[in-house]
């Protein structure tokens, strides 16, 4: 019966693991709801500021801000958003894959790449695999605050201001739905005039300008920095929602797999027990016949 006992204890340990994963699934599900609410709450601001900035990109301004001028690309920067904790399926890996793809593309052109890592997983990734990490922030938690991000963002913006970076991208997971998250790479700087999908915008681009108060330079300086911050913040908040959704799915799968494993082991256990009983009976019968 030694084999049967071993199987028993194996089943016991899998059951314990299953309890943990199913608890984690439920925790992730409730956290996901909150994260999703946070994501939708901050979306209007991010969308509106994007609309305003896209209008600005179409103007013919008296003063062209650094952030609006396309330069020759010598060095690019990536802000990589990841989660702080693991056990979330392929969430972070798919972001890192996207980053690696981008980095390869630039390297082939002989262009250097700088990174800013948000979330401890990204920090660990760049430490292990190399990559020129210029700014990092870990431990953003479930409700990230804009203040936590400003440090890393301003490092990148300063590099851009000083001409060390010629382009700035942000990489994060996009929340498609609970089942699907996909990594996206978005260019933050220089600003791109988006494709004309605005229904209200029929005027030709470049033929008009705003009235600026107090003046174009001060205003655009403030507004564009705010724009970048809000886009990065939105990326982080969205990534948190993705993290919880991915963890929920990953833990659900783990719980299901544990269930299957237990069923299989129960079968093996029953077979072993039956075999032991049969053997005992045949031994008794054999013994009786010999007497």
């Amino acid at each position, binding site marked *: 019966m030694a084999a049967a006992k071993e199987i028993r204890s194996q089943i016991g340990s899998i059951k314990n693991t299953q309890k943990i994963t199913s608890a984690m699934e439920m925790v992730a599900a409730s956290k996901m709801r909150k994260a999703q609410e946070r994501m939708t*709450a*901050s979306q*209007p*601001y991010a969308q*509106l*500021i994007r*609309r*305003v900035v896209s*209008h*600005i990109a179409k*103007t013919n301004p008296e003063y062209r801000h650094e952030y609006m001028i396309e330069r020759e690309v010598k060095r690019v920067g990536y802000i990589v958003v990841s989660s702080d904790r693991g056990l979330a399926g392929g969430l972070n890996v798919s972001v890192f894959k996207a980053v690696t793809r981008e980095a390869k593309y630039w390297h082939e052109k002989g262009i250097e790449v700088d990174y800013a890592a948000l979330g401890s997983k990204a920090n660990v990734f760049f430490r292990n695999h190399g990559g020129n990490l210029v700014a990092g922030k870990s431990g953003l938690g479930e409700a990230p605050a*804009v203040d936590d991000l400003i440090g890393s963002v301003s490092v990148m913006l300063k590099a851009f201001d000083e001409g060390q970076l010629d382009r700035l991208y942000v990489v994060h997971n996009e929340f498609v739905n609970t089942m699907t998250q996909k990594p996206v790479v978005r260019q933050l700087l220089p600003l791109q005039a988006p494709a004309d999908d605005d229904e*209200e915008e029929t005027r030709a681009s470049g033929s*008009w*300008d*705003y*009235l*600026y*108060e*107090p003046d174009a330079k*001060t*205003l655009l300086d*403030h*507004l564009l920095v*705010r724009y970048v911050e*809000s886009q990065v*913040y939105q990326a982080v908040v969205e990534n948190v929602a993705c993290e919880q959704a991915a963890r929920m799915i990953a833990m659900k799968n783990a719980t299901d797999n544990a269930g299957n494993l237990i069923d299989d082991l129960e079968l093996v256990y029953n077979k072993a027990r039956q075999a032991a009983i049969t053997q005992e009976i045949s031994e008794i019968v054999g013994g009786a016949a010999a007497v």
Partner: protein
Amino acid sequence: MASFQCDIVSAEKAIFSGNAEQLVAAGVSGDLGILHGHAPLLTELKPGPIRVTREDGEEEVYFVTGGFLEVQPEVVSVLADTATRAHDLNEAAAEEARQEALRAMGDKQSDLDYTRAAAELAEAVAQLRTIQQLREKGGRG
């Protein structure tokens, strides 16, 4: 009167979205009144009230602590740092904040504290201004 699309958002949530006939906001270079067909304009906002006259003539007052205002002939967007409905403002709390800020400015410990206190004072004064406007409106009606 012709109306325009008006959106007010703060970093946390959408505050107002709908058609409006008139919008009055406190820009850094002075108060602005916006009607339909205003020339494109971008301005920073001071802490202060934003008054929106809806299509049905109802007036709504919001309080913002700063932000940006974008005007297009048909669309007006307010990107507020934080925005609250003026009805939710508490006059006593605002007055207390003003006193607190004045006191903090009185004992100038460091420049940093001073600038922060000055910003807090500006905010408290703006809140009080919003409440006063709200009360005047109530008195008239």
